[in-house]
């Protein structure tokens, strides 16, 4: 593998990324701050065979998750058959009663899924979490690859790497597959959103219109895009990058000013496709994560190819006993929190903190999951002229058109500090390109 040539371009590529606006917005103490998303030149490399294995497991997982969402907003067979307890559905934050009995075009709920994985020191891959709402991040390795190719074309001639610039094509195919007739738009909350760069970049690459809520209007049970001249053009698919609660003030949060009134009503009638479907949060709850291998078995009749990190559900008595006994070696996660928050390492607590936490756990067992701490495989980054190890994860993107498709690349994120296990980009840290080898 030849990657050394890339090192010399680290500053150039990062400067260009900054100029293109590749930034990540974060809220810290309620203040919105935009920060650069540092790019590391050393790619994560995944061999062809290894990726083929991941691909198989990812397709299987997303197919099962999609079946699960369809089932939950329909007949709920998996609850009736006792595989998933009812309260993990209704008492979770992701379930939306408004979605009961609503079938999206072609029965697809999770069009774009971002599945986070980590690799242990034993080379074993584990699923960390499923992101089925509006997972972001595909644009970062796309543009980084573009800039790296421009910097040192020879590196990409010498190495047989799968070209990741086809993401736009996969996304377009995904949007076209469910389009109910009309234009395709990418709906953004606007330029102050954390992922605005991504919204504009994906619009440019897929040829979709980049719009905000005020440019879309519902009339006669159809959705229209109002163009620059005031003309109304029908819209058949909306890749919306705003969350369910802000999507439609008439059906979700009434206070929303970035949504489109009545878009959900016409979606219910099948007159427009929304990507991803509202209500998907019911399947990417940390509590539901525990059940995904069981879902794969239940809906597909197959064993899960990819494993979850070993997870315990204190809701079940035997799991609670295990958690209490092995508390110091486990990591506990609050199912209601995201973005690397609400995570507690058993061995990092003081005595009082531990007592306080255990009381909370016993009182609200459904609120937490416990996991074995995975010994991550470190990967190298190039920092200040030196190669040094960091913890990293991989967000793989799975797109669902007439069949599930796994993008042969992905977003590799690494922790900011050498000793941190949390690699979520909303807590700092940087990213890498992910090379999937073609040979």
């Amino acid at each position, binding site marked *: 593998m030849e990657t050394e040539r890339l090192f010399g371009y680290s500053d150039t590529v990062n400067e260009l990324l900054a100029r293109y606006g590749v930034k990540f917005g974060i809220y810290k103490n309620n203040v919105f701050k935009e920060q650069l998303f540092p790019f590391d030149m050393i790619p994560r490399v995944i061999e062809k065979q290894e990726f083929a294995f991941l691909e198989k497991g990812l397709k299987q997982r997303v197919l099962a998750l999609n079946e699960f969402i369809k089932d939950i907003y329909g*007949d709920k067979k998996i609850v009736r058959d006792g595989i998933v307890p009812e309260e993990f559905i209704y008492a979770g934050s992701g379930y939306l009663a408004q979605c009961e009995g609503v079938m999206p075009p072609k029965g697809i709920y999770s069009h774009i899924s971002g599945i986070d994985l980590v690799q242990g020191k034993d080379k074993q891959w584990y699923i960390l979490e499923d992101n089925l709402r509006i997972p972001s991040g595909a644009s970062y390795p796309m543009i980084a690859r573009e800039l790296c190719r421009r910097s040192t074309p020879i590196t990409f001639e010498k190495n047989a790497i799968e070209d990741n610039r086809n993401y736009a094509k996969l996304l377009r195919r995904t949007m076209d597959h469910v389009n109910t007739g009309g234009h395709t738009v990418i709906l953004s909350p606007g330029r102050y959103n954390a992922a605005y760069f991504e919204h504009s970049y994906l619009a440019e690459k897929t040829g979709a219109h980049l719009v905000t809520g005020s440019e879309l209007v519902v009339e006669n049970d159809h959705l229209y895009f109002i163009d620059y001249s005031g003309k109304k053009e029908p819209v058949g698919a909306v890749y919306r990058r705003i969350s369910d609660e802000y999507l439609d003030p008439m059906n979700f949060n009434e206070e929303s000013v970035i949504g489109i*009134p009545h878009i959900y009503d016409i979606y219910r009638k099948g007159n427009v496709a929304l990507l991803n479907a509202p209500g998907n949060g019911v399947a990417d709850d940390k509590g539901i994560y525990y059940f995904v291998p069981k879902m794969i078995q239940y809906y597909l009749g197959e064993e899960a190819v990819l494993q979850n990190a070993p997870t315990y559900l204190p809701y079940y008595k035997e799991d609670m006993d295990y958690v209490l006994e092995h508390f110091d070696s486990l990591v506990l996660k609050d199912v209601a929190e995201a973005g690397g928050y609400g995570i507690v390492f058993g061995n990092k607590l003081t005595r009082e903190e531990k007592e306080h936490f255990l009381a909370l756990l016993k009182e609200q067992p459904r609120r937490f999951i416990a996991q074995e701490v995975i010994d991550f495989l470190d990967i190298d980054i190039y920092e200040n002229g030196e190669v040094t190890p960091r913890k990293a994860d991989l967000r793989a993107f799975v797109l669902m058109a007439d069949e599930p498709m796994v993008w042969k690349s992905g977003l590799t994120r690494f922790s900011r500090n050498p000793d941190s296990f949390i690699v979520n980009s909303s807590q700092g840290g940087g990213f890498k390109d992910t090379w999937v080898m073609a040979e």
Partner: protein
Amino acid sequence: MRTLQFQYHMQLTFDFPACDHHFTLRCRPFHDIRQRILEERVEIYPKHYSSEEVDSYGNKCIYGIARTEHDHFSVDVTGEAQVCAENYLPALPAHRIGMYRYQTALTKAGLGLESFYRDLRKNASANVVEHVKDLMDGLYGKFQYEPGVTGVNTTAEEAFCRGSGVCQDYAHILLALCRLERIPCRYIAGMLMGEGATHAWIEVSDGKSWIPMDPTHNRMVDDTYIAISRGRDARDCTINQGVFTGGGSQKQEIRVVVNDK
């Protein structure tokens, strides 16, 4: 069986013209085995476009837009209903009823309701309906009717802790108590014989049917009640919901008249 004539009148008055007024109205009384709608007229003014749909709770919604500037927005629903209080609506199948067993943001019980519930629980009856009647009775003895002290966003816990409120609060608190033991129950918005505002009560499922009960009056619902909308809580049942541009401050006037024919 009883035949009732009803009039529902709602008017929003803006002190500054409103436009691009999107509305969703859950204002059409149910036509089912409990109440047969013999005659119905719905008038919405102003209105530039409207359409209909049935939501996840079974409400017949009218949604649309009043685009141009207007100082008033009014909804009038008038008609005749034949009510047969002995006909209970059939319970829902397991996969449709689950959502009615769990608390929502408005019904979520806190420390106050939980401790009240523990006291009431001591003399629990085995029969679901009898049991909820006991809960309702306990609530009636504890909670005062007082208009103007609670609002549309007041939760069951907040209302309970202050000790008084209106029909919406009575309904939310009773729903919260039922859901503490996972009894499926739902909020009903509707009209009551006489002249006044809209009313709210609840329905409890005993496994076979939905049994309506009125916690504000501490009684079973009879043939003087007409149901308009239903859901997990008051928010799901909003009869008139809207967003608009402009408008300044607004005043809402609601008048309901129900008489024997």
